[in-house]
């Protein structure tokens, strides 16, 4: 589900505010990467992350981010949702109808009609001690925003 709403109070000028509802299915124990299905109304990603919960992995900081380009800015990245997964937590995610945790504001009006907004799931591996790598999962999904703003106030 994608909607774009005009005129929502932000830092200064009117900026586009996008709404995305999504499902996330991820299996962090098994070792296959793959994109399963994309549906116009909502998308379903099947991500099988590699088994990375070894003895030195304390937690994963997972985040779903939207990346896109606009007239105003060559590169925009907005985190829509994040989750901390501790070692010992259920490594299989099966989340449906998730609303984004953070407001998806653009810096300007670049979401309107933007067909090239890509959602990616990434994670920061937090060890007990050592390096902090950032990993991006495979399986990008494109979320094209409509050309018009949503006028009804039902968010």
């Amino acid at each position: 589900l994608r909607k774009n709403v005009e005129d929502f109070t932000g830092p200064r000028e009117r900026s586009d505010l996008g709404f995305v509802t999504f499902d996330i299915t991820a299996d962090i124990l098994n070792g296959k990467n793959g994109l399963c299905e994309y549906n116009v109304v909502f998308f379903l990603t099947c991500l099988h992350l590699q088994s990375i919960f070894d003895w030195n992995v304390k937690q994963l900081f997972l985040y779903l981010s939207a990346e896109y380009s606009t007239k105003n800015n060559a590169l925009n990245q907005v985190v829509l949702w994040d989750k901390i997964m501790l070692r010992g937590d259920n490594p299989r995610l099966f989340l449906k109808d998730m609303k984004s945790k953070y407001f998806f504001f653009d810096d300007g009006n670049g979401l309107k009609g933007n067909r090239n907004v890509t959602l990616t799931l990434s994670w920061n591996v937090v060890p007990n001690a050592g390096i902090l790598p950032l990993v991006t999962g495979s399986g990008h999904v494109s979320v094209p925003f409509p050309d018009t703003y949503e006028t009804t106030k039902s968010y």
Partner: protein
Amino acid sequence: LFSGSMEPAFHRGDLLFLTNRIEDPIRVGEIVVFRIEGREIPIVHRVLKIHEKQNGDIKFLTKGDNNAVDDRGLYKRGQHWLEKKDVVGRARGFVPYIGIVTILMNDYPKFKYAVLFLLGLFVLVHRE
């Protein structure tokens, strides 16, 4: 690390290893160390949003993992974004709890004297 705003990843007292290569692009998910104008203590939080122009000018928003809201309320009055110039470093690795000794020494002067006293004893005893 001074506060618990990045728990459970990092705790008060953890020691972070930073790099500060200006060419390193700032991207969401990264943990940056930044300073707010007028404040002495740098903050270590994660990048939540970035808007970067063609010429490389970037403005970004941060948030502590353990905080309910983003850092906009922490920035200077009227400041809505951080810029490259505010960045002091990027967290690349860490060692837990080592820095707790310096924090304890700051919070409890008696502890500092005890540590110095013990160190002094240690040096004396091992002077061969």
